[in-house]
């Protein structure tokens, strides 16, 4: 449950979940909606995947993400959005995490 709270604490991740409510989207299509770098976006996807809020599948060279939210998780996301909850960790940490993750899995790119 801790991972779920961590994932829902970030507005970008909540927006990703909101976009996926309309149906599965590729990593690129999702990234187009945000003004952040691709490694940062990748890190957001990893956090959401680890919290079991989204599911990913490979379609050729691209990765397609789809929503995997229970009713309680969706309600929590709604409350977090309503109250404007924001993660305390600076985005720099996330970016560093993403760079490290990408260095480790250079052959498995989301985009």
């Amino acid at each position, binding site marked *: 449950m801790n991972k779920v709270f961590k994932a829902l604490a970030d507005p970008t991740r909540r927006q990703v979940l909101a976009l996926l409510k309309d149906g599965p989207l590729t990593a690129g299509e999702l990234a187009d909606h945000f003004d952040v770098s691709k490694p940062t976006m990748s890190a957001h996807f990893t956090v959401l995947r680890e919290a079991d809020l989204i599911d990913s599948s490979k379609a050729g060279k691209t990765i397609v993400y789809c929503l995997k939210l229970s009713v*309680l998780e969706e309600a929590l996301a709604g409350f977090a959005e309503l109250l404007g909850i924001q993660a305390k960790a600076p985005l720099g940490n996330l970016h560093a995490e993403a760079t490290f993750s990408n260095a480790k899995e250079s052959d498995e790119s989301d985009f």
Partner: protein
Amino acid sequence: MKAISDKLLFSLTIAISLWVVFTSGYLLYADSEHPGRYLLAIAIMGAAWTIRHFVRRHAEPAPTSLAKRKLTQSIALAGVMLSLALVMRLGWIDGLGEFGVRARGIISGAIVVLIANAIPKQVSSARRLAMLRIAGWALVIGGLGNVLAWLLLPLAYANEAATLAIFFALTYAIVRILWLICKNRSIPPPTRSG
């Protein structure tokens, strides 16, 4: 996301299954007028464990543990529901008077909420996901209505109000899903570019 370890889940499921089988066996002996319902409970547990054993022997190594865990969770849930029915049959709840009747209703509502909560947590297409979300939300709210009715209303009205809550939730879900199916039929599927 694992709330409890595989070993603990397995042990709990074994305990619940043994409780269901032995209690059903006892009731089969004590209440010989209705043997079918108790034999059915034993058969359900037997069939579920047989399926689990079959999956363990024939699935590939990687997905086996996940499939096994899901099956074990399902057996545990079925066991809890059967246990509730068996406890009522044993008359333990009736002995508690009004509290027992309310507890029975609240547990039934909580089971509806628990199952409905997980309905949308399935990987599916956009159209199917929309339907699963409607069904999940409607039944969670209906289940909560059921729980609240048993918790707050006078006992004379609680049963009717709780049943109505589930009935309205189900009707709403069915009507919305049918409306969605009709709407989707009239719209051609979206074409993807890029």
